[in-house]
């Protein structure tokens, strides 16, 4: 349903996407993660048909996405900077979306508006940031578009509302299975509703896999410095920390560590622990070079 091949997008002098390739066929709840500026929003806009690729291909439902009416009617994009008709009330917007998105469930939309205490008669422009985010999510979910792109849907919402929202997204996905891509920074909160992860870094796809594989991609090894040092020399280390003189911890790729095929005694003195999704993300996307420590020590 979604196929990107060597997708590249330039904006004047800046390269937002640089050879991005991936494929999504079946219904899925996939998290799209990456640092700010990695290219997530640009990717979403290209998939929605708003932007034309500078090179490479972006195919949605089998056809090139740019300005394609078949794509436009089956894709809904929720973005922080989107605006609606000036002075439109929430009710009017619900009707507008209902007219254009043929799967729109008005009853659901109104029910959700009521649950989140949003007054239908209010104007969208008068809502606070959090309420506007909530409304946007409600309306784009209720659209039940086969491909739903949510760009930082939880921005500006307080934690309790965010929790409710994840529940709504999951429940609606189960009720009407479709492709839902969520770009978010709230990794820890969101991970349990996801099935797959798409990590975009430097305009490319760094990792696209099931959640578990993503979680177990890296592993932390803890042990005495003597035990750790030889491993450190052989593998790429994402982080090295000393917990006092007797213990050192490094973070490496699990697969690389397994390939070392250490003997029982060597492996026995090491303690392996998993890494949280958020930490994995941080390690995989961190910048090389000087850190904050250095700033504060000089």
């Amino acid at each position, binding site marked *: 349903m979604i196929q990107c091949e060597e997708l590249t997008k330039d904006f004047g002098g800046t390269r937002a996407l640089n050879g991005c390739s991936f494929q999504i066929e079946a219904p899925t709840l996939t998290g799209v993660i990456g640092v700010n500026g990695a290219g997530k929003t640009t990717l979403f806009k290209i998939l929605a048909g*708003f*932007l034309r690729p500078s090179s490479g291909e972006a195919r949605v439902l089998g056809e090139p996405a740019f300005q394609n*009416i*078949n794509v436009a*009617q089956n894709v809904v994009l929720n973005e922080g900077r989107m605006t609606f*008709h000036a002075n439109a009330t929430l009710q009017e917007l619900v009707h507008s979306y209902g007219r254009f998105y043929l799967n729109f469930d008005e009853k659901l939309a109104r029910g959700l508006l009521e649950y989140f205490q949003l007054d239908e008669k209010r104007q969208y422009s008068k809502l606070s940031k959090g309420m506007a985010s909530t409304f946007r999510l409600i309306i784009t979910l209720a659209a039940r578009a*086969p491909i739903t792109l949510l760009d930082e849907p939880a921005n500006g919402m307080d934690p309790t509302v965010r929790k409710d929202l994840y529940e709504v997204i999951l429940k609606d996905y189960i009720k009407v299975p479709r492709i839902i891509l969520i770009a978010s920074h709230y990794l820890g909160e969101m991970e349990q509703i996801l099935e797959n992860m798409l990590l975009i870094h430097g305009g490319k796809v760094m990792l696209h896999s099931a959640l578990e594989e993503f979680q177990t991609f890296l592993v932390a090894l803890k042990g005495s410095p003597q035990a750790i040092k030889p491993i450190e020399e052989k593998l790429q280390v994402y982080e090295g920390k000393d917990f006092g003189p007797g213990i050192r911890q490094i973070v490496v790729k699990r697969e690389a560590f397994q390939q070392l095929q250490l003997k029982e005694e060597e492996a026995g003195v090491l303690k392996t622990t998993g890494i949280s999704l958020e930490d994995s993300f941080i390690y995989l996307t961190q910048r090389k070079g000087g850190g904050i420590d250095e700033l504060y020590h000089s």
Partner: protein
Amino acid sequence: MNSIIHKETQMTIALRQTRDKLYHNANAFMYLIILQLLGYFLANNVGMSGSGTEYFSYTVRIASSVPLIFFTIIWMLLQGLHLAGEKSREYYLVSNNFTAYFSDIAVLEIFAVTGGVTLLLSESFLQVMVSVLYENVTLQASFSEVGFINYVSLFVTATLYLLMFGAAAYTVGILRARFKGRFFLGIFLLIALLIFGSVLAARLLGPAFGSTIESAVNFYLHETRGMIWFLKMAVTIGALYGISYLGIRNLEVNA
């Protein structure tokens, strides 16, 4: 998942968009009425002249529908610009450049027709108004000789002029959306070119060929041959539609 995928035609969606735009721009009609009321108010105060001697004085009040026409044109220009300005927002609903363009033009035409009808009626309304407000009303000869064909041609004339202005404003708006910064540069160059060109033409070809804004206006206004005028309008409006279509065709949406 295939059951929820739809494949409606561009035309279906374009028509739906037209309805949606009219619905959301309904207050445009309200603004038209307000502007026209202002026009009526000013119509009454267009001009006065008076004269008198010791024994006798009189004042003559001239009521003209020119302010009305002026405001309606302003209204059309604003609508044209407004529709073009929506370009970054409306794609979040179902739309592509074709459907957006189609619905914009359809809405502009509906607005132009509305403007034309109201102007047509305003002529009669103005006559009634002054007859009611003042005594001793003399109507211009052209008013009293109006028959059905004249009404139709008045309507067509007004509508086409309004459509032209609306299309012009829309084209300007689209070009601005498409070219952003370079647009203003382009305008600057265009004006410079026109001034330079007309000065050059006047010097080389004699004063008769020098173009000014006045002569551009007269190109349309003073055309008395009906079919030629219609042709001029059709070509102008067609050209404006063409330019705006070229402008919108590959427009990228980037707020």
